[in-house]
C-alpha cells in the first residue's frame, strides 16, 4: 500500500497525536458545532461506485485558518460478507485511520466527532478531503478484506448535514437496540478481565453480552475494544469453546480460562447461577445476591445501601463473605447492569427467586423486573427482618412461597441447634454442603453462617430446583 501521492505521512506512530488549539488549521465537528456525525453504512454492491470520493460543501482549501465547521463523514461499503451488523465495527475504524494521518486528530464517535487538522500538515499540501478519502479507502480495503467496494462522502455544507443528521441518529439508535439485544449465544468470543486480581488472585471476570463485569463498568463491547488494542493486557479474549449447557451458561472456553487464570483454583463455572458453581466475586462488585435460607430466596443489596439489610447484616459484612475470588454458593457479587439482563440468575429462577432488594435498585432496574413479580418483592419499606419478610411474601404470594409448600411436609428432617453461644466457626464459602444420594440426597444449610451457625438444617433437595 502506498501513500506517496499523499502530502503528509500516514502511520500508526501518529495515533495519540494531539493537535493543540494554537497549532490547528481547522476544527471539524467538535464541541463548538451542534451537528456533526460519522456513519458507516452497509450497501448493496450495485449501489456503490467503488473508490468514489464526494465532497459536499467547502473543501479544506476553501476554509479560513482557525475556523470551525460542521462535519459529516459517510463511509458506504459493500461486499458479499458485509452486513449491517458490521457497521459499528467499520465505523470505529474511521477514528483509527484518521488518527494515522500526520497532523490530524480524531476524537469521539458518532454524533460527537471532533477533528482537527494542523497548520503544518495543511502547509505541506494536505488541503483537500480528496487526500483523506484516498487514505481511508486504501486503509479500509487493505485491513478489512470483506470490503469489496467502498465510497466516501465528506459533508461540510450545514444544510446537507442538517438533512442527513436524523438519518444518522436513527441508525445509531437502531444499532444500540441491537447491541442491547445481543445474546451470549450469538457470539463466539467472551472477554475476561483480571484487573482485580491484585485484590482477588483467583478471580476471573467473564464478560459476555448478557453478563456485564461485576464492577458494572465493562461491557462486552468494551472488552472487545480493549482486547483488540492490547490482547496481552488485563482484558483479553476468551474463546467460548464448546457449549456444555447453554441454560446454565457453561462453556469449555470459560472453564479453561478459569483454570489458567486462577492457577487451577477454579475450574468450572455456571455463568447464570448464584448457587451452583457460581462466577467468582472480586471486591469490586456493585451488588450482592445473598441467600436468605429461611425463605429459600435471594436478597440483593448494593454498595450504596446504608445500614443493615433484611437479614441484619449490612453490605460491608456480606461483602467480606462474598469477595476474594472464591465461588461462594449463595453469596454472589453482581453488577446492576446484570439485573437488566434476561439471563439474570436464570438457573436459580431469576427474578422469581429475588425476595428483597433496596427501593433504589427496584426503581433503577424496575423496567426489567417482570410485572407479575415486581410488587411481590419486598424492599426496606416492607420488611427489615425475616419474620416480616415471610409474612410479606406470603401475603403477596411470591413465587418462592410455592417452594415452601413443596418442602413443608418433610422440611426439617433433622435439626441441630447449638446454644453454647461461645464457640463459633466462620465458614465463608461453605454455606451449603451436599450429601450424596441417589435421586436427591441431602442439602445441609448453615443458617446465618456468615457469622456463626445458629442452627443446622438438613433437608431433602431437588424438589424446588426447577431446571429447564
Amino acid at each position, binding site marked *: 500500500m502506498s501513500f506517496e501521492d499523499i502530502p503528509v505521512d500516514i502511520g500508526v*506512530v501518529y495515533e*495519540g*497525536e*494531539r493537535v*493543540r*488549539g*494554537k497549532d490547528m488549521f481547522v476544527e471539524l465537528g467538535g*464541541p463548538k458545532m451542534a451537528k456533526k456525525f460519522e456513519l458507516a453504512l452497509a450497501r448493496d454492491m450495485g449501489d456503490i461506485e467503488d473508490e468514489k470520493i464526494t465532497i459536499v460543501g467547502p473543501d479544506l482549501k476553501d476554509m479560513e485558518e482557525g475556523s470551525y465547521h460542521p462535519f459529516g463523514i459517510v463511509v458506504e461499503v459493500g461486499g458479499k460478507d458485509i452486513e449491517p451488523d458490521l457497521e*459499528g465495527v467499520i465505523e*470505529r475504524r474511521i*477514528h483509527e485511520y484518521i488518527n494515522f494521518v500526520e497532523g490530524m486528530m480524531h*476524537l*469521539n*464517535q*458518532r454524533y*460527537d466527532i*471532533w477533528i482537527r487538522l494542523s497548520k503544518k500538515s495543511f502547509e505541506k499540501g494536505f488541503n483537500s478531503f480528496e487526500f483523506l478519502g484516498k487514505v481511508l479507502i486504501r486503509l479500509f480495503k487493505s485491513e478489512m478484506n470483506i470490503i469489496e467496494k467502498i465510497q466516501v462522502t465528506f459533508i461540510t455544507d450545514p444544510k446537507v448535514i442538517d438533512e442527513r443528521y436524523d438519518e444518522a441518529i436513527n441508525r*445509531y439508535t437502531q*444499532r*444500540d*437496540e*441491537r*447491541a*442491547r439485544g445481543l445474546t451470549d449465544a450469538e457470539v463466539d468470543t467472551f472477554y475476561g*478481565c483480571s*484487573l*482485580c486480581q491484585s485484590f482477588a488472585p483467583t478471580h476471573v471476570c467473564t464478560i459476555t453480552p448478557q453478563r456485564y*463485569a461485576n*464492577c*458494572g*463498568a*465493562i*461491557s462486552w*463491547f*468494551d472488552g*472487545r*475494544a*480493549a482486547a483488540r488494542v492490547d490482547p496481552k493486557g*488485563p482484558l483479553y479474549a476468551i474463546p467460548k469453546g464448546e457449549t456444555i449447557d447453554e441454560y446454565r451458561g457453561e462453556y469449555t472456553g470459560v472453564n479453561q480460562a478459569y483454570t489458567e487464570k486462577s492457577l487451577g483454583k477454579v475450574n468450572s463455572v455456571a455463568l447464570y447461577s448464584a448457587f451452583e458453581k457460581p462466577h467468582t466475586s472480586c471486591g*469490586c*462488585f*456493585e451488588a450482592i445476591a445473598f441467600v436468605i435460607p429461611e425463605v429459600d430466596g435471594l436478597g440483593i443489596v448494593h*454498595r*450504596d445501601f446504608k445500614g443493615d439489610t433484611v437479614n441484619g447484616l449490612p453490605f460491608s459484612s456480606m461483602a467480606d463473605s462474598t469477595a476474594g475470588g472464591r465461588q461462594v454458593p449463595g453469596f454472589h457479587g453482581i453488577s*446492576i*447492569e446484570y439485573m*437488566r439482563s434476561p439471563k439474570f440468575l436464570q438457573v436459580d429462577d431469576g427474578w422469581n427467586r429475588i425476595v428483597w432488594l433496596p427501593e433504589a435498585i427496584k426503581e*433503577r*432496574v424496575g423496567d426489567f423486573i417482570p410485572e407479575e413479580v415486581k410488587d411481590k418483592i419486598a424492599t426496606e419499606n416492607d420488611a427489615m427482618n425475616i419474620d416480616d419478610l415471610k409474612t410479606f411474601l406470603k401475603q403477596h404470594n411470591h413465587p418462592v412461597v410455592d417452594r415452601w409448600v413443596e418442602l413443608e411436609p418433610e422440611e426439617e428432617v433433622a435439626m441441630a441447634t447449638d446454644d453454647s453461644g461461645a464457640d463459633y466457626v466462620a465458614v465463608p464459602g461453605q454455606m451449603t454442603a451436599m450429601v450424596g444420594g441417589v435421586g436427591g440426597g441431602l442439602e445441609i444449610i448453615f443458617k446465618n453462617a456468615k457469622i456463626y451457625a445458629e442452627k443446622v438444617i438438613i433437608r431433602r433437595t431437588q424438589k424446588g430446583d426447577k431446571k429447564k
Partner: protein
Amino acid sequence: MRERLVISVSGKGGVGKTTTAALLTRIVTEKTKRDLLVVDADPVMNLPRALGIDVPKTVGSIATKLRRDIDEGTYSGEVTKQDVLEGEIYEALIEDPRFDFLAMGRTEGEGCYCYVNRLLTQILDTLSQNYEITLLDMSAGLEHLSRRTNRNVDILIIVVDPSRAAYEAALRIRDLAKEVHIEFKKIVVIGNRFPPEIEADLRSQLEIEGLDLIGMIPNDDELSKVNYRGVPLFELDEESPAVKAVDQIAEKLGLLGEVTLLKLLGQE
C-alpha cells in the same frame, strides 16, 4: 519523536507545592517555547487560581458522571467507554496560549473505579506524550505514590518548609518511591521559606540522606501579597526574590537550556 519530560511536585501539605508548580510554569512559558502540559493532581485544586485560569470540568467529575451513567443504565450499548472518556478528557483540557491545563479533581461516590482509572491512566499517558514537559502538582500525602500514578515521572521535586514534619515527609516520599519501584531519573528537594542561616544545615542533612537540595525559595513578601489577593503568580514582578529563585532552579534542572535537558534525559 520529540523528547518528553515528566516532572512531579510532591511534599507535605502547605509547604508550597502549588506555588512552586505555578512559578515553574511561569518560568518555562516565559523563557522557552516548549510545549507544556500542567496537571493539577491535587483534589484541593489551588493551582488554577495561582495560574489564573477557570476550570469548568475536572477529570474526576467526568469519571463520576461515567460511573453514574453506567449505573443508571443510560449508557449507550455499542460505544466503548474508552472512546467516550478520551473525548471528554480532551474536551476538559484547557488550552491557554501559553500552556495546556488539566485538573484531575476527585471522583465521588462509592463503587469500583478499577477500570475507569485504568482507562484514565492510558489516556493521560498518551496525552502527556504530546508535550515536551508535563508538570504535575501532586496532592499532599502519599497515595499517589502507592497507587503508582507517578510511575512515568522523570524528575521528582519534593518541596520542604522549615518544619520537621515536612522534612520527614520528604524522606518518606523518597523511601516509598523506592519501595514501589518507581524509577525517577532524578529526585531533588526545594527548600521553601527557610531563614538563610539554616540552608547550609539543611543541605548537609539532606546530603547524608542522599538527597540533592537544588534550590531555595526565600520568604517573599511580594509573593505573600499576591497569594493573599488571590491573583495569578504571572503578575508577580520578575525581579521578586521568589521568581528569581525558581528561575535558577529551572535552569539547574535543565528546563531552560536545550542541551542540559537532553543530558538529563540521557539522550546526548
